[in-house]
């Protein structure tokens, strides 16, 4: 009988296969290196070669992204800021993050959201969403705790939470329909809120207790849920999620997704120390 397959073992195997000779990591094995999987893996494995790849692939304005044309993706900048060693490159990433504002959209009956709040977008010059806002809030909380933008991140999360708690990608109500929360986005919002807003964090983590059980087929949802429960100090939930994570990863190739593998490696290793203050 062989050794038990663990989520951690599967994730590390996938990360090894996703590593390229340039030191970076692709979004799947055999794919060219990209900022997001490289930054997450740098955090997970404390990988200096991955950090070096990031340094050599920073955009002129301090951001990190995959493409740069009319569409200019931004989501990797916060993760890269968390991954980088202290210094000029990291400071430029944080500068960019502090300056980056999503577009505001006025309140409407169709989409009743506070149009005065700005957050962080997935791509330049578009609306703000839960996941990129949570990532940016995490990075600023870790390295620029006095940044006034942190409160904007919290305000966006407060405004966008689903009825009954938790978060989806960022719409609470659309055309009169209450949109339900997801485990994945709720977990990363709880991580971002940890230490910033106790009530919101508590409400989110309470909702997450049922959400991750409903979505236990999702490895990235489970990995981030484990991170959130670690942050809030709920050891019972951490153990329960970890068992579920091992179960779901057993016999799975994680759809060959390096980002999923990196999050699993972060939460089952000591990577969370590099994300949370």
């Amino acid at each position, binding site marked *: 009988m062989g050794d038990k397959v663990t989520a951690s073992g599967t994730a590390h195997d996938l990360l090894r296969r996703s590593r390229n000779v340039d030191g970076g990591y692709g*979004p799947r094995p055999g794919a060219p290196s990209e900022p997001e999987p490289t930054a997450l893996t740098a955090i997970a494995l404390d990988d200096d070669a991955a950090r070096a790849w990031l340094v050599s692939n920073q955009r002129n304005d301090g951001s990190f992204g995959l493409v740069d044309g009319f569409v200019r993706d931004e989501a990797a900048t916060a993760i890269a800021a968390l991954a980088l060693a202290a210094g000029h490159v990291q400071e430029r990433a944080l500068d960019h993050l502090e300056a980056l504002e999503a577009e505001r959209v006025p309140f409407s009956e*169709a989409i009743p959201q506070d149009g005065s709040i700005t957050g962080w977008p997935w791509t330049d010059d578009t609306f703000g969403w839960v996941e990129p806002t949570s990532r940016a809030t995490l990075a600023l909380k870790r390295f620029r705790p006095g940044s006034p933008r942190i409160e904007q991140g919290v305000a966006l999360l407060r405004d966008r939470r689903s009825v009954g708690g938790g978060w989806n990608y960022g719409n609470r109500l659309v055309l*009169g329909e209450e949109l339900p929360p997801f485990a994945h986005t709720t977990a990363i919002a709880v991580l971002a809120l940890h230490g910033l807003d106790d009530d919101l964090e508590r409400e989110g983590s309470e909702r997450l207790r049922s959400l991750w059980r409903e979505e236990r087929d999702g490895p990235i949802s489970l990995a981030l849920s484990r991170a959130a429960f670690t942050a809030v100090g709920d050891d019972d939930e951490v153990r329960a999620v970890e068992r579920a994570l091992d179960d779901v990863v057993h016999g799975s190739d994680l759809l060959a997704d390096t980002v999923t593998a990196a999050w699993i490696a972060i939460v089952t290793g000591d990577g969370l120390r590099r994300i949370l203050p």
Partner: protein
Amino acid sequence: MTGVDHHDQAGPADPGRRRFLKAAGLGVAIGVGSSVALRLGGVIGDDGTTPWDPDDFPPPGDARVAVLRASSYDRGLESTVADGLRAIGADVRGARVVLKPNLVEYDPGVPINTDPRLVAATSVALRRLGASSVTVAEAPGHRRDLQYVATRSGLLEALGDVDTPFIDLNTEPIRRVPLRTRYTPLTELWLPEALVEADVVISMPKMKTHHWAHVTLSLKNCFGCLPGRVYGWPKNVLHWVGIENSILDIATAVRPRYAIVDGIVGMEGNGPISGTAVDAGLLVFGDDVVATDTIASTLMGFDPESIPYLAEAGRFLGQLDRDRIADDGEGPDAVAMSFERAPTAETGGRTG
């Protein structure tokens, strides 16, 4: 080698780009997203030009569509699909085929996605018809945790049963593809190589109403070809430049060769994720995505010419004229349905 492409330093400081998005944002565009006003021929064509090159898009020719009855997902579906593909003259012999279903979200009891049993049956049918390989590929727009949606919806299990691989288009290597039309200012799309290199792409939407795009069928289904790691979750930039404009630019870039619409159980009302089931009992096959959507929307009880992006697509991309669409099978007039419209911003959330 790097996957990073900073080919164009036009970024947030680019005044033209910012101006467009600012203007678009006034109308816009959130989440499941509303759209800016459709900038179709009426605007772009005011100066006598069209948003496409006539040399690239000759006038649409005759099309073939087959509407077949299928009462359930359980029995004989492979044969029905094979019959439908034969009826439209689909030739997949030796072809590497990519099936693009509509996999959006999982909500038990709500028919959001193309049914996995139909996707699996189609894979079997295509191989029987001589396809050299069949792959199913998707990049859902709401959920980053694709394994959750693909597992819980039953898609991974159904594909495993028929030995068909699934590709996550969110992690597939991407390629810059210049746009062939100019409905948005995007100028290019980043498309997964699996789609670019396929011999045949088949769009397999669910028959649904959509609260921003009227209906979501073969053309709208192409949104799910774009990787979230470039466009986000949701792919909000596509909303900012106009959902209907984006549908046209994306569909012309992806160029699905055939379409199969899952209307065995469709969705009416607040689609694409919050509507209610309609037991339509139909499959719609087509060798032209515009013609397929024309017939499918007619079956749903809508006038295709009242759906702006579909009417526009009929100018250059495919056949909108019912007289030039050969109807095989039941034909669109054999089944009279009246799907409840989706609510829109104009109706303040009320359906009807």
